[in-house]
């Protein structure tokens, strides 16, 4: 029985327990790495992005017409003898299936893997009605024996070791087994389940595709159990979500190019099976099977009409959003979803299983964009996760205190900046004059002490600007700086380094004083209205700047200013004056240096070895990957590659405060990789990452220094 925590305290306790599970940790960490490493081989010769965009476009076109497709499917399936049902919710689907079983005097039922059946808790219902139900997919059988839900959409028992599986099988078979030998354990399943296939009265499957123009089901599998489930018993019932409807075979075959590759790294699975109608069955009087298909709505049809969330129906259940998620790889699926697991699970849970089951898990997202990048149907998962949280708050009709304060403060730039300045004073007892806070009060140290914290600068960049800034006669270019909170108030020296570089190249630089936080923290807290108000403030602040570019040193600010500003106003159906020109001018530091800045290429290489950490919002958000690495070399340093450079550092803004234990573990892996790389310096181009990485390395007393790329370049020979 799945019990997803409904309060943060219970959830955090469970997360803590999951982090202590050493098998889970090493298995999932290994999986995360291997999956990403194999990907280039798996996709050799395949235009992933091209096909992804094509599928997304096709799906978006058909999603508003799911009912029309259903009618077409039904018409065609009926011609071949299939009885087609539609169920408005889980209970109705379960009742329909139980009634089919009862009407046909069924005793035993075999099942192949179906997430939709997990969604409706079909087994529980059928067992309550007295039917014997046996899962036949190996992973599903294992979790059935363990009375658990799946911890991954494709590999339901990935959380269990061979020894745990062996123990379950020993109990089941009343015999001693060689638990070390996976091959032998698999053969136990073959032997135990074979008679079940031959004896069962009814087989239940899911489906990956319901092809409307022929009334055919398409099923993508590996083990061969689904083929037996749909062949041997005299009755076949398929439970299929409305979202599985596709117009034709062509669309299906296109999706099939990405589904197995993304799910299991296979070009194609062992079996792809196309089933239509009442196929031959020699042990029935009319030599034909009985075939039913139950289409499940359970919120899908209203979702299909939602302007924001309808794209979640594109999901083809490949499970990849979990595979690459740094949080999933630390805590596993039972702590990262309700029935549906991973990023898509955090979204769908609200719509299929209600807000109570989503309330706390939905907050557990770093917004690192790894899931969005891997998604084969282009769902904007991190964005929808925040929208889901906003939806829950809206349904609740009341906000957490944190949100209320955040909204009040951030909507008012002067108040916000006043409070930050006050923090400089408040932190004095802890800094002891040092640039980092190394020890927190004891009640905070236990959870949050994994990194030293930076101090709020005595004088923010904005207060120093007038003095630092020099007027440039005949400037080669005019730019403005979007500082963001971190540069302005924590690391003004990074802003100063930028100004030095710009002034050296005779670039005139402006700093509009009315600029404020980019608004991403508000967006992350699902404070949509606040995020919008902040966006308007910034657009207004830069409106009168006659500049070619607005440069920012923060990858998260850049990505938010460019992409989220457009999304915010598109969703609100507003088009404020200056939005387009503002977002068009925003440029991240690396791209600016690469594209615009007059660089001298001929520099001798210094011996200093520099590792690079790729900020999430730069490498995935803005797709800027090669430029920073090239800049390190151009500045005369030796770039040293390290493992998993593009995996999140675990910062995620307030995430690292809300989920410090997970943040700590993600950071640990990152720093282990850096320390294994032989680098003397670690460079990145996001002040948030600097905060996390520098704090972590300082706590480790590592000799490796952390710098923003701008500091490296201004110190280097550019």
């Amino acid at each position, binding site marked *: 029985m799945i019990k997803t925590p409904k309060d943060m305290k219970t959830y955090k306790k469970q997360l803590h327990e999951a982090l202590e599970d050493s098998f889970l940790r090493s*298995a999932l960490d290994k999986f995360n790495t291997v999956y990403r490493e194999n990907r280039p081989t798996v996709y050799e010769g395949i235009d992933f992005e091209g096909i992804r965009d094509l599928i997304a476009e096709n799906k978006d076109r058909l999603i508003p017409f799911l009912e029309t497709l259903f009618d077409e499917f039904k018409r065609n399936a009926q011609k071949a003898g299939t009885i087609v049902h539609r169920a408005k919710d889980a209970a109705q689907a379960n009742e329909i299936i139980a009634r089919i079983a009862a009407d046909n005097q069924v005793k035993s039922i075999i099942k192949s893997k179906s997430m939709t059946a997990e969604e409706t808790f079909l087994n529980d219902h059928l067992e309550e009605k007295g039917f014997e139900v046996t899962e036949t997919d190996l992973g599903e059988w294992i979790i059935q024996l363990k009375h658990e839900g799946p911890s991954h959409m494709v590999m339901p028992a990935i959380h269990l070791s061979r020894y745990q599986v062996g123990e379950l099988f020993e109990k089941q078979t009343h015999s001693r087994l060689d638990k070390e030998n996976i091959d032998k354990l698999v053969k136990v*399943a073959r032997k135990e389940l074979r008679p079940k296939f031959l004896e069962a009265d009814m087989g239940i499957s899911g489906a990956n595709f319901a*092809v409307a123009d022929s009334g055919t089901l398409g099923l993508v599998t590996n083990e061969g159990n689904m083929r037996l489930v749909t062949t041997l018993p005299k009755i076949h019932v398929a439970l299929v979500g409305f979202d599985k409807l596709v117009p034709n075979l062509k669309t299906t075959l296109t999706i099939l190019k990405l589904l197995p590759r993304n799910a299991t790294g296979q070009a*194609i699975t*062992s079996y792809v099976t196309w089933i239509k109608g009442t196929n031959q069955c020699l042990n029935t009087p009319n030599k034909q099977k009985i075939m039913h298909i139950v289409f499940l709505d359970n919120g899908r049809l209203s979702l299909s009409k939602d302007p924001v969330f309808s794209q979640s129906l594109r999901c083809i259940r490949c499970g990849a959003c979990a595979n690459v998620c740094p949080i999933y790889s630390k805590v596993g699926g039972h702590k990262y979803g309700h029935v549906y697991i991973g990023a898509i699970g955090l979204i769908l849970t609200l719509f299929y299983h209600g807000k109570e089951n989503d309330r706390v898990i939905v907050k557990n997202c770093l917004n690192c964009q790894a899931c969005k990048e891997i998604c084969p149907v282009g769902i904007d998962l991190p964005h929808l996760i925040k929208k889901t949280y906003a939806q829950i708050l809206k349904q609740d009709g009341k906000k957490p205190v944190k949100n209320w304060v955040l909204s009040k403060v951030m909507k008012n730039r002067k108040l916000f900046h006043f409070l930050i300045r006050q923090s400089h004073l408040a932190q004095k007892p802890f800094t002891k004059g040092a640039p980092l806070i190394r020890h927190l009060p004891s009640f905070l140290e236990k959870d949050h002490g994994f990194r030293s914290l930076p101090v709020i600068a005595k004088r923010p960049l904005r207060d120093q600007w007038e003095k630092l800034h020099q007027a440039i006669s005949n400037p080669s270019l005019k730019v403005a700086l979007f500082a963001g909170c971190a540069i302005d108030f924590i690391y003004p020296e990074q802003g100063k380094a930028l100004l030095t570089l710009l002034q050296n190249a005779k670039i005139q630089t402006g700093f509009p004083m009315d600029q404020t936080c980019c608004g991403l923290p508000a967006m992350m807290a699902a404070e949509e209205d606040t995020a919008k108000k902040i966006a308007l403030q910034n657009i207004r602040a830069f409106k009168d700047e006659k500049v070619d570019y607005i440069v920012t040193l923060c990858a998260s600010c850049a990505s938010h200013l460019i992409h989220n500003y457009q999304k915010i106003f598109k969703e609100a159906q507003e088009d404020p004056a200056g939005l387009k020109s503002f977002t068009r001018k925003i440029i991240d530091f690396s791209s600016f240096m690469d594209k615009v800045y007059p660089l001298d290429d001929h520099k001798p290489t210094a011996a200093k070895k520099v590792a690079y950490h790729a900020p999430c919002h730069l490498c995935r958000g803005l797709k800027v990957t090669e430029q920073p690495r090239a800049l390190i070399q151009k500045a005369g340093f030796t770039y040293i590659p390290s493992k998993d450079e593009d995996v999140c550092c675990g910062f995620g803004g307030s995430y690292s405060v809300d989920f410090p234990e997970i943040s700590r573990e993600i950071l640990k892996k990152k720093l282990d990789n850096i320390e294994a790389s032989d680098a003397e310096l670690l460079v990145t181009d996001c002040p948030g990452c600097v905060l996390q990485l520098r704090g972590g390395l300082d706590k480790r007393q590592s000799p490796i220094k952390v710098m923003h790329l701008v500091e490296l370049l201004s110190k280097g020979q550019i």
Partner: protein
Amino acid sequence: MENKKLIQLFTQKAEAVGTIVREMGSASDAIQYTAGIANKKQMNTLACPGLSSKDRDLISDLCKSEKLTFLESPLREQASFLDISLTWANYGIAETGTLMLVSNSEEIRIATMLAQIHIAMLPISKINQDTEAIEHNLDKILKNDTPSFAAFITGASRTADIERVLAIGVHGPVELHIALLKEA
């Protein structure tokens, strides 16, 4: 793509997932091959639904001399002791080393799903580059108003459900062999 290259690609992709591919002349060679495998693996029973009566006679004679039991239709009751099956495949898909089998007949389904070893005969002329190339034919089959069951088969039955370690032969055949026939 010229024929030779297509065969090469098909073979390479099929072998990459553990399928055993052999080029041979005709169905009678494949029958000899099947008997040879049965003998080598010390298997006892054999079924070959969908073969011509001439080929069935050939195989049933061979079974007598090789001490193999030839399983006649219906196979359902004999499924629990079916060792090896020989069937035709309708198409090959080179890009992934995949077979397409129209399996409307329950006997074909049982033979290809429950045997320990499945040997499929594929005329080389039936090898296509990719799924797009057979899309039209499959679509025609599925758009018929009669029931149908068609399968893409790529390698043996497999699972990685325990610790993500690949294990072959969980519910379906433990081995898949493809006899590529020069003459059909």
